[in-house]
C-alpha cells in the first residue's frame, strides 16, 4: 500500500466546529491534500454487490486503486464441508446469482467426475440449454449494466426485461427463478415440462430484435464508444498473467473457452464459435459479450433440435433418488431413497481430490473438491472467475479518470457473491 493511502486517513484531525470561513479545520482531512483518498464502496452505486475500491485521486485522476474484498463473505466454501453433496447445490445458486444454473451444473459435474458417474444424454442436453440460457441472461444484463454505469439507464432496464424472460424459463423448469437448484449429482431434479422447449424457442426467437435494439442504443453510439474504446486496455499477456478467463480474457485476445477446449456435458456436439477480440478494452468486452449471446442462442437452438429422450438421472449409479412412484411401492427404491437422504449415508464419494472447471458466463469456474470418503466433502474450494477479474482492476484503471474506473469495473462483470464465497 502506498504511503499516501495509509497516511491520509490516519492523520484525522479533530472535527472541530469551526467558525465560518475557517473551513480548513472543519473539513475532514483529505479534502485539502493534493491527493484525496476516496472510498468506492462497499456501498456505492457502481459497486455491484458490496465491493470496495480504495482510490487515491489526484483531482479526477485515479493514482492508486486498492481493490478490497470480503464484504459479502458468506462462508460458502466452509458450508460445503457441512452439507451433503446434493445439499451444497442450493449453496451454489447463491454464489454467482447472475448465473445460478451454470453454477449448479458446474458443481454437479465436478462431483460426478469424482464419483465416475455418466449422466444420461437428455440430462446433458438440458444442462447445456440451461447453462447457455444463464449465459444469455448474464451477458445481456451485463451489457445493460455496462450501459447503466455509463448513464444509459434505459438499456439496462431493457436488459432486465429479457433477463426476467430467461428466469421465466428457469422457473418453468425448476420452480425457482434466481435460486434454481435444478441439477442433482447424477442428473437433474426433474425433467423439463412438456411445453418448455417450445417456450424456450419462442423466447430465443424474440431475443434477436432486442439485441439489435441494445446495439442500436450503444454499439455505434459515439458517446458510448468514446467512453469505452481504449479504456481499461489489457493485453493478451496481461490477461494470462492476471489469471483472467471468460469474456474479459477473450476480449484481450486470449482464445480460450472450456466449452470448446475441454468439452463437458456434450458441448463437443454443438457447432458454435468462440468470439475473440484483440483490443482488450471495455468496448471489446462489450462486443464479446454480445457476440457470445448470439453463440449461446445457436447452441440452445441446436440442443433443442436434437434434445434426446430418455431419463434425466443416471441409473445404476446409486447416486440419484429413485422415482417417487417406485419409492412408494418398492422396497429397494425406498431403501435407496432413504440411504441417499439420511445424513451419514448417501453418496459416498471415494477418497481423493478433483479439480473440475466449467465455462460459466463470467469465466472459468473451477471446483476443487477433496473427499475423505464420508458423505460430505472434506473441502470445497471454488475458483471464482470474479476474483481474478476484480483484482485486475488495479493495473487496468490506475492512472485513469474516475469515470473510467466505473466503466472498467462494470465491464469486468464482477459478482461479489462469487468473489467472496
Amino acid at each position, binding site marked *: 500500500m502506498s504511503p499516501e493511502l495509509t497516511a491520509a486517513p490516519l492523520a484525522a484531525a479533530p472535527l472541530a466546529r469551526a467558525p465560518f470561513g475557517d473551513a480548513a479545520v472543519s473539513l475532514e482531512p483529505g479534502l485539502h491534500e493534493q491527493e484525496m483518498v476516496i472510498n468506492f464502496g462497499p456501498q456505492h452505486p457502481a459497486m455491484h454487490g458490496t465491493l470496495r475500491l480504495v482510490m487515491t485521486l489526484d483531482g479526477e485522476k485515479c493514482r492508486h486503486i486498492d481493490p478490497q474484498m470480503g464484504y459479502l463473505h458468506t462462508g460458502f466454501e466452509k458450508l460445503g464441508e457441512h452439507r451433503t453433496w446434493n445439499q451444497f447445490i442450493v449453496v451454489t445458486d447463491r454464489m454467482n446469482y447472475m448465473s445460478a444454473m451454470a453454477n449448479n451444473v458446474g458443481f454437479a459435474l465436478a462431483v460426478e467426475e469424482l464419483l465416475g458417474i455418466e449422466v444420461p444424454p437428455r440430462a446433458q442436453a438440458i444442462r447445456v440449454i440451461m447453462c447457455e440460457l444463464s449465459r444469455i441472461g448474464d451477458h445481456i444484463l451485463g451489457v445493460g449494466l455496462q450501459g447503466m454505469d455509463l448513464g444509459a439507464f434505459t438499456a439496462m432496464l431493457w436488459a432486465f426485461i429479457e433477463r426476467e424472460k430467461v428466469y421465466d424459463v428457469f422457473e418453468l423448469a425448476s420452480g425457482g427463478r434466481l435460486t434454481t437448484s435444478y441439477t442433482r449429482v447424477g442428473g437433474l431434479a426433474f425433467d423439463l415440462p412438456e411445453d418448455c422447449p417450445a417456450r424456450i424457442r419462442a423466447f430465443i426467437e424474440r431475443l434477436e430484435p432486442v439485441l439489435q435494439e441494445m446495439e442500436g442504443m450503444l454499439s455505434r453510439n459515439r458517446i458510448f464508444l468514446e467512453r469505452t474504446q481504449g479504456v481499461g486496455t489489457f493485453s493478451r499477456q496481461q490477461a494470462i498473467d492476471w489469471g483472467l478467463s471468460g469474456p474479459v480474457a477473450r476480449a484481450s485476445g486470449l482464445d480460450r473457452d472450456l466449452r470448446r477446449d475441454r468439452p463437458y456435458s456434450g458441448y463437443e456436439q454443438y457447432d458454435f464459435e468462440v468470439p475473440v477480440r484483440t483490443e482488450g478494452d471495455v468496448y471489446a468486452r462489450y462486443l464479446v459479450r454480445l457476440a457470445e449471446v448470439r453463440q449461446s442462442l445457436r447452441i440452445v437452438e441446436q440442443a433443442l433440435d436434437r434434445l434426446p429422450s430418455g431419463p434425466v438421472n443416471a441409473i445404476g449409479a*446409486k447416486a440419484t433418488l429413485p422415482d417417487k412412484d417406485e419409492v*412408494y411401492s418398492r*422396497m*429397494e427404491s425406498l*431403501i*435407496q431413497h432413504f440411504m441417499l437422504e439420511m445424513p*451419514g449415508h448417501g453418496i459416498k464419494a471415494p477418497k481423493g481430490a478433483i479439480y473440475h472447471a466449467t465455462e460459466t458466463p463470467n469465466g472459468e469456474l473451477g471446483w476443487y473438491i477433496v473427499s475423505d470418503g464420508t458423505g460430505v466433502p472434506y473441502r470445497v474450494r471454488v475458483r471464482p472467475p470474479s476474483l481474478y477479474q476484480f483484482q485486475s482492476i488495479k493495473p487496468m484503471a490506475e492512472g485513469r479518470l474516475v469515470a473510467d474506473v466505473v466503466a472498467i469495473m462494470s465491464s469486468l462483470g464482477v459478482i461479489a457473491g462469487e468473489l467472496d464465497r
Partner: protein
Amino acid sequence: MTADAAAGPGGEPGFTPDFTFSIDGVTVPAKKGDTILKAGLRAGKFIPHYCWHPGLSIAGNCRICLVHATKTMPPGKPVIACATEVVEGMEVESDGPRTKELREGVMEFLLINHPLDCPVCDQAGECDLQQYSFDHGRETSRFEEEKTQRPRKDLGPLIRFVGNRCIVCTRCVRFCEEVAGTGELSVVNRGDASWIDTFPGVELDNPMSGCVADICPVGALLDKDSMHSTRVWLLRGTKSVCAGCATGCNVNVETFDEKVKRITPRENQAVNRWWMCDAGRLTWREATAPARVGAARIAGQEVPFARALERALELVRDASGGVVGLTTGFASNEELFTFQGLVGRGAIAAAFAPDGATFTSRDGFAIAADKNPNREGARRILGEGALGAAGQDAAIAALEEGKVGLAIVHDAAPGGAPWSPRLLAALGKAKARIVLALHETPANADALRGAAVVLPAAHATEKDGTFVNAMGRVQRVRPAVPPPAGARSDLDVLEELARAAALQPRVLSAAGVFRRLAQALPAQFGGLDYNALGELGRPAPGAGEALLGRGRPLPIVDGVRSGYEAGPVSRAPGRADDEQVRPSVHHESLVGYGTRRGDL
C-alpha cells in the same frame, strides 16, 4: 491384564497367526479354526453379514456373506464366509462381479417380504438391511406379488416385535439361548411364514432383553423405551460408563438436542463384552425424574445457581470449627478426592446404595449386586475407615460433639443416599450445611431440609471423571448433556469450595484432579494417566487378572428375578416423559417400586 490395552473392540489379545490366505488378492493372516469372515474382519476386510455376531454361535442362515473361495468342497460352489474355515493358501473372492451377483440375489430374497416401513421404522439409519441393499443390492424391485403378513406384538416389557421386518436371522434367539441363557425366544412356523416369538406363557423379560434390539440387524425388535422418540442419525454418541451398578458397563450415551434419548452398550471385552442390562439402559431417566433437584436453593428458596454457589463459598470461607463431609458411592474419583481435601481432617462418611438384584449370564456377563458405580473408588480414596457404618459412626460422633461448623453433603445417588436416621438427625447439629443433591426423596429429605445451601448435583450422564468398577478398572465417564439450567458440575463446585477454603490455589479440570490424585495415592492409582485411559479404561494397581470377574466372583445376591427391579432407576421415584414410554407393566411396576424404596 497387560494385553488389554492392545485389544480394541473386536480385537483379540495375543493373536498370533498360524498361516495366511488371501481375500481379493490381499494376503491376510489367520489362525487355525478361523472362519473367512472372522479372519477378514480382523484384517479390516469387511464382508457383509446379518446372522453372524462375534458373541454368538454361527447360524449361517442369512447367506449374505456368500463368497467364492478356492479349496472348498465341492470346488467352485459359493460358500458362506461366516461358517467356512480358512485353510492355508485359500483364495477368497469377496468383492468381484460373481460375489456381487450372489449378494444381489440374496438381498432380493431378503427384501421380497419386507414392508415399506423405513419411514416409521426406528432402525432406519442403523439398519443393515438398508446398508447392504444400498451397497450390494439391486436398484429396484421385480417383486409384484402380495407381501406376507406376520404379527407385530410386545415380546416383553422392553421389546416390541414387528414381524414383517424380520429376516429370521435368529440372532435374538441365539442371544437368549447362549448369552442370557434364559432361552425365551424361538422361531415359530416355517418358510415365509416364520417369525420370532416367545414360548407360550413366557415373556422376554430377562435382565438383558434390551440387547436383542441392539443386535437385531433390522428393525424387527425395537427398544420400546426409545421407540418413536427420535432418529438415529440425529443422535450424538458420548462414550461413557453406565452408573447403574459396580460392573461399569461401557456405554454410548446417545443424545439429541441436549437430551439423552437412549443408552446403548459399547463393546469392551474386559468388562461387558457387547452387552448391558436393561436396568442400566434406563438409568438416563434418573436425570429427568421429577424428584430431580433442578434449581439451587438458599434456605429453601430457589435462587439462581450462581448466587447459591456464592453463598456456599461464603459459608466455606467463614466456617469455624470442624467440617464433616457426607458422600456416596456415586461420586467420581475426582469428586471424592476433592471432597476429601475439602473436608480435610474432618470426618467423612460415604454411604452406599444397598445391594440389589444381580444376574450372571451364561457367557459371563454380570450385573453386580453392588449398585454403586464407584464403591471401589471410594474405598481406594477415602480408605476403609470412611466407608459404611464406621464412617457414619465417626461422623455422628463428630457432629454430636457440637463443634462442627460446616457439614458438606454430596449426595449424587439416584433416589437419595441411604444415610442412617441417626446421622440425618445429627446433621442438624452442624452450624451450617451445604448439600449437593441429585434427587430429593424421603430418604434424603432430612438432609435437604434446613440446609443453608442446596445445589443440584450432576447425574452420571452429565459428569466428567472416572469410576472404578468392582473389578478395579478405572474408566472414564463423559458428559453427554449439560447439568440442569445454570448449574455447574459437582467437581466444579467442589473445586470452587476447596479454593474458597484456601485449600488449593486453583480450580482444575477432571484431568488435573486425576493427576493430583494419581500422585497422592500411588498405591491406588499410580501409573494411570487420565488421557491415556482411552475409551476402554485401564485397570488400577492391584486390580489384576484375578479381580476381573473370573477368578474372584462378583458379589452376587440371588433371589430377585428381574433385572428391572435391580437398577437405581427403581429407586428414582417417578419419571419424566412418561408419555414417551409405551404402556407396559414393567414401567408401571418400576414407579410403584420406587416409592417403596425406603423398605429396601
